């Protein structure tokens, strides 16, 4: 199967992609439980998608915490509510900004990588060769990558949240003589399970769909070298869009449930 016009976002293509990704999803679930799990490849993908993204996410997280604190501090200081700063920054990072920004970064780095890699394998007919040699390419290439992104993104978000917390502390410490204990106490003063669990579940879905969409775009990319770039590009664009869609649904559900 090949995507008809991967570089165009027309309605027909959109519906076809939705159908294709849904099929891809069920195929993934079926393959996950039916076929042998490629553990070695899964670890390899975890390393590439998770560990190798840590530096990018970490730097971004520190800057995110720092920037948010520096930006919000004067407004809250004017209101006389500077004491709320740690709490406000930490909750916004923990519930919304962290998961979404880190997922977008992850989609940019890992999604495009998966799309381009699988697409190049498709172009160079390596996937076809695997099929011929009785190796299940879907199980080896797609299941491992989707599983790895599903597990690695939440872990990256945990790291990112922690580093953003430190970044916020550094940002506030530069302006006021606040102790770490007081900062920690204020940051956690209004954090509840209802903030942590929906955010964590959301990031699991983000990771899953980034892996699934990127794999789909690469797995069914067009022929030729241009197909590789287009697949990488489509993987990032579609993943980013889906991240916001999932975020919207998650906010609605969280609001209903809490």
């Amino acid at each position: 199967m090949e995507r008809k016009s991967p570089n165009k976002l027309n309605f027909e293509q959109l519906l076809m992609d939705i159908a294709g990704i849904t099929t891809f999803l069920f195929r993934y679930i079926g393959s996950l439980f039916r076929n042998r799990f490629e553990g070695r490849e899964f670890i390899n993908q975890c390393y590439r998608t998770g560990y190798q993204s840590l530096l990018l996410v970490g730097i971004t997280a520190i800057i995110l915490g720092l920037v948010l604190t520096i930006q919000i501090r004067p407004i809250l200081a004017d209101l006389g509510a500077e004491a709320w700063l740690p709490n406000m920054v930490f909750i916004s990072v923990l519930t919304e900004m962290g998961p979404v920004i880190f997922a977008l970064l992850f989609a940019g780095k890992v999604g495009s990588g998966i799309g381009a890699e699988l697409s190049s394998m498709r172009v160079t007919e390596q996937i076809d060769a695997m099929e011929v040699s009785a190796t299940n390419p879907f199980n080896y290439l797609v299941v491992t990558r989707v599983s790895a992104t599903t597990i690695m993104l939440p872990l990256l978000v945990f790291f990112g949240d922690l580093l953003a917390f430190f970044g916020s502390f550094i940002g506030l410490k530069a302006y006021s003589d606040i102790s770490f204990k007081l900062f920690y106490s204020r940051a956690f003063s209004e954090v509840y399970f209802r903030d942590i669990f929906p955010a964590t579940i959301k990031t699991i879905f983000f990771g899953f769909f980034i892996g699934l969409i990127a794999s789909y775009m690469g797995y069914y990319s067009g022929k030729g070298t241009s197909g590789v770039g287009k697949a990488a590009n489509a993987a990032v664009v579609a993943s980013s869009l889906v991240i916001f869609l999932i975020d919207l649904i998650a906010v609605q559900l969280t609001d209903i449930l809490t």
Partner: protein
Amino acid sequence: MKKKLQRSILVGIFVTLGLAIFIAAIYLVGKKENLFGSPVRVSAIFNDVKGLREGNKVRLSGIDIGTVSSLSFMNDNRVFIQMNLEEEQVLYVKKDSKVTIGSEGLMGSKVVMILPGTIDGIPVQEYDTLQTVEQVDIDDILEEVNKSSQNIAVVSSELISITRKINRGDGVFGKIFTDTTLTQNLDDATRNISYITENLYDLSEKVNAGEGIVGKLFADTTLTGDIGKASANMDEITNNLREITDKINQGQGIFGRMFTDTSLTNNLYVTSKNLQSTTGSLMLLADKMNNDSSALNLLIDDPTFADSLEILIQRLNRGIVEATEAADAVQRSGLIRAFSKKKKEEK
């Protein structure tokens, strides 16, 4: 192979650390929400919880000692809230503690505040229900402020009308500000007051100099001596009066007996009774005397009887005179003188 092993180790470390962060976050939030201890559950019933939510803090004297675990409606539309209190802090929550709902600053979330009970009170126990104090709502305050502002508007409009009347010169205050004769009168009055004060000054000078009666009162030492003596006499009089009253109180003398002796009062009572009966008898007698048929009435009222009596008395007087003369004549007779001489000798 070595590279793959290295990757596996790095992934392992990465996953472990990531999970450790997650577990730490769970632990910290759980500790804050008091999930890992064995909390003491106490409850309270409110008419209005003002937006309180599950997980909100419970504070005692400003220290967080627990969380709100559940909120539910009761049959009478009141709200039943259950709180999980930290076991080690429960000792400080007494059975007579009261619960109210406050907020963490103007923009903060709601908190349940426990107002401390008596120091030596009994600590709360599991499933106890604490008494509640309903706080004044900000809406009620705003409503009061609204009423006050309306009243202020009315007062200010009335003040405007008053000041207009004053400006026009209506009424007493208007005259104060507009009438020039009033100011002239006030001017005269102040001049008079000045004159009076000058006179008073002169008077005080004279008093200081000891002139006149008042001056002597202040300056003459003999007068003060006389006053002193008079006061000493007064003192003596009061002492004597005190002694007299003491004696009366002790029952000494007639007055003392009058006030203290009950037998005297009894006697007086009997005497008054007797006097009453005597006066009754006298009244009867007087009635009888008034009666025409009685002899006494004749004596008192009848003039003919009085005339007859007078004639009788005159006749008696004349008779007596005649008898006396007769007796003298007899004494002067020789026979009688001889007889009387013999009698004297016998004695």
